[in-house]
């Protein structure tokens, strides 16, 4: 007993001076060799002993041996193909004490020969084993404490960085929206906790026009804030020189391209308003499409262009719209429309457009949008991105502006071939979809109970007829057969070719989804298709045998994020479906997952290349 105690004291003393004696790693020194954690490598200059303190790789057979061993290991007796073991043997280490805590190897104490030269006895080994069981939890606690300290320091550094980023943003954003006779402007900015790179700006241009800017920098934190500041300065300089929106973005892009870090870019919309005439010119570098409300209908304003900073020499399409009295325009960033709700669905542009259709774009719209957002995301929302809204509304001012009643039409200023391309793309097509709804209460599905939630008219229900039914096994590539079947089955309806193409593509995507997600590509499982027609609409049901198996929550793909490598390049199927038809509704019943696609028979021809198809209702689940 006395031997053991003294031995313990001796070893503990040795352990206590371990750090100071690493340079002399000879007789009698235990060396603690940490396992796994790369942070725990010694920071001292390399020395013979330091090589012993290297990580024990998880795939080193010695690691498994140490974990399984109960008690002290006599190093000379081991025969393993292990680099660490060879290093120990080369350093004349004799014993190894694995430190195991909660089933995890957290370190190994190694000992060289005894100072006096005699062999280790059974008592020594027993005492060392006891030591190991007591040291292991203490070492684990020390490791955890150190990790927590490191994490705390990292958090502190990030917080500081966020403070800097916030400061930059708050300094550069306008303090208030400008006062402009005959117009009402409002802005709202709510940074995410992580501080994204949203910005907006109002510019008083020399000739009396007003410049409106909204943008979003990829990335977050200080880098985003700095890039936002740079972009804002360059754009201001270009715009204040009087350049048109397209030229302003071109110049900004060319200058920014030189300085922008790799994989970063800026989406930006720049518009100029002539307050006297209501002429709004705009160009868009990949930013969310602004929404224009005219006569109660809401239309996205499209102008194509690549985000700033990606490539030099880009050109930016310039478009214009003449705003009439009571017209309004909403600029926004993706933080709102891409906010995720509790069920992981996105807030979405259609929801915003529907809101705008009911309200003039001013402070009231901002408040309503925020209220809807709050309801949508729930109480425990972790805001992922900045939310920015800028609204512009033409007032019914006496004298000058209100009497331009004939001006509520879209014009094209420099690119005549695209003139009017957007006129028919209003989101009020949602209403058309309502009228064209193939009714939910067909005789074969009265069992669903709540199907009548749309209040669809029963007359319409009776006007739907089945044109044909078809099934296909789940074979890769057979969605093309489904397309051919659609073309053939709907031929008697003589649909406009653009309508038929949209329906064919939507059916192909729905069929692929059914084969892949529903039927798991099991050739024995079928995809069921049914073609329907009413006097005003065509519809196809696509069903599979995988009710509720796969998560098929629709999302809006973010192309910029995909190009930046932040999102998978895939994930377009349901998005395309929703964009191509007027309604896409999902039902789960009788062990089948079915999507019903509806398209108006007299849908206007696509005004490509600038057509923005109707984003009809959200895909809904009924059960």
């Amino acid at each position: 007993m006395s031997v053991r105690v003294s031995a313990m004291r001796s070893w503990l003393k040795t352990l206590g001076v371990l750090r100071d004696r690493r340079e002399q790693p000879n007789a009698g020194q235990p060396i603690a060799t940490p396992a796994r954690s790369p942070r725990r490598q010694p920071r001292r200059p390399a020395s013979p002993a330091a090589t012993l303190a290297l990580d024990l790789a998880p795939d080193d057979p010695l690691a498994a041996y140490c974990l399984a061993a109960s008690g002290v290991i006599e190093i000379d007796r081991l025969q393993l193909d292990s680099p660490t073991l060879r290093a120990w043997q080369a350093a004349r280490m004799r014993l190894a004490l694995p430190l195991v805590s909660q089933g995890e190897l957290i370190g190994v104490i190694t000992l060289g020969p005894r100072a006096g030269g005699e062999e280790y006895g059974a008592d020594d080994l027993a005492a060392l084993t006891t030591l190991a069981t007591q040291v292991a939890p203490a070492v684990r606690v020390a490791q955890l404490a150190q990790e927590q300290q490191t994490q705390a320091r990292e958090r502190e550094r990030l917080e500081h960085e966020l403070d800097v980023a916030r400061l930059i943003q708050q300094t550069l954003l306008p303090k208030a929206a400008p006062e402009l006779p005959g117009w009402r402007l409002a802005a709202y900015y709510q940074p995410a906790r992580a501080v994204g790179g949203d910005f907006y700006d109002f510019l008083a241009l020399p000739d009396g026009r007003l410049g409106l800017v909204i943008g979003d920098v990829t990335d977050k934190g200080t880098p985003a804030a700095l890039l936002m500041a740079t972009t804002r300065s360059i754009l201001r300089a270009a715009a204040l020189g009087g350049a048109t929106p397209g030229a302003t973005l071109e110049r900004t892009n060319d200058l920014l391209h030189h300085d922008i870090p790799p994989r970063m870019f800026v989406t930006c919309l720049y518009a100029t308003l002539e307050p006297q005439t209501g002429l709004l010119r705009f160009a868009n570098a990949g930013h969310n499409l602004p929404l224009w409300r005219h006569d109660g209908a809401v239309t996205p304003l499209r102008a194509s262009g690549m985000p700033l900073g990606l490539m030099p020499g880009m050109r930016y399409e310039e478009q214009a719209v003449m705003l009439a009295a009571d017209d309004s325009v909403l600029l926004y960033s993706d933080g709102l429309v891409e906010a995720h709700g509790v069920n992981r669905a996105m807030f979405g542009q259609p929801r915003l457009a529907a809101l705008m259709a009911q309200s003039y774009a001013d402070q009231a719209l901002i408040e309503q949008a925020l209220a809807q957002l709050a309801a949508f995301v729930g109480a425990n929302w972790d805001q992922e991105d900045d939310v920015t809204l800028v609204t512009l509304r033409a007032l019914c001012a006496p004298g000058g502006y209100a009497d331009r009643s004939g001006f509520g039409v879209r014009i094209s200023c420099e690119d005549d071939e695209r003139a009017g391309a957007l006129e028919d793309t209003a989101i009020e097509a949602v209403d058309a979809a309502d009228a064209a709804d193939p009714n939910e209460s067909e005789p074969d599905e009265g069992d669903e109970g709540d199907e009548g939630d749309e209040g669809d008219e029963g007359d319409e229900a009776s006007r739907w007829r089945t044109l044909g039914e078809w099934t296909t096994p789940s074979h890769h590539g057979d969605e093309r057969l489904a397309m051919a079947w659609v073309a053939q089955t709907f031929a008697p309806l003589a649909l406009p070719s653009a309508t038929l193409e949209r329906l064919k593509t939507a059916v192909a995507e729905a069929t692929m989804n059914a084969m892949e997600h529903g039927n798991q590509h099991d050739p024995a499982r079928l995809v069921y298709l049914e073609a329907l027609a009413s006097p005003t609409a065509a519809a196809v049901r696509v069903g599979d045998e995988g009710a509720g198996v796969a998560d098929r929550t629709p999302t809006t793909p973010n192309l910029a994020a995909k190009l930046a490598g932040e999102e998978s390049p895939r994930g377009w199927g349901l998005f395309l479906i929703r964009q191509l038809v007027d309604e896409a509704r999902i039902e789960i019943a009788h062990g089948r997952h079915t999507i019903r696609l509806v398209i108006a028979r007299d849908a206007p021809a696509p005004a490509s290349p600038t057509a923005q198809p109707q984003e009809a209702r959200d895909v809904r689940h009924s059960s």
Partner: protein
Amino acid sequence: MSDIPANQRFAARVRQATPQVAIVALSGEINAYAETALNAAYAEAAASQPTAILLNCAAVDYINSTGIALIVGLLAQTQQAGRALLVCGLSEHYVELFTITRLADYMRVFPDEATALASMSDDTHG
């Protein structure tokens, strides 16, 4: 249709139209099976270090969502390499798909090769 394996329904041929522009002429279906051939054609086109790569889709009869994803992948590669990706010969329907997906914001869409090449030679920028 299904008796012809889908992976034989896609082909890509590369030719150098000008020192600056390589053309990748695609035909058949751009779907999951096109991935290998499409990426190989892109690598071949990129080898000459052109400033722009033009995808000629005049002989493409089908692009599905996976095909869109492949084109997104090519676009990401061209952007990293600092070159432009252009497309021509799309049917009206596929122009609409490029617009919906906003691919058209990132790659200029031309009716045909001649227009695309003329635009590139007119382009005094980078």
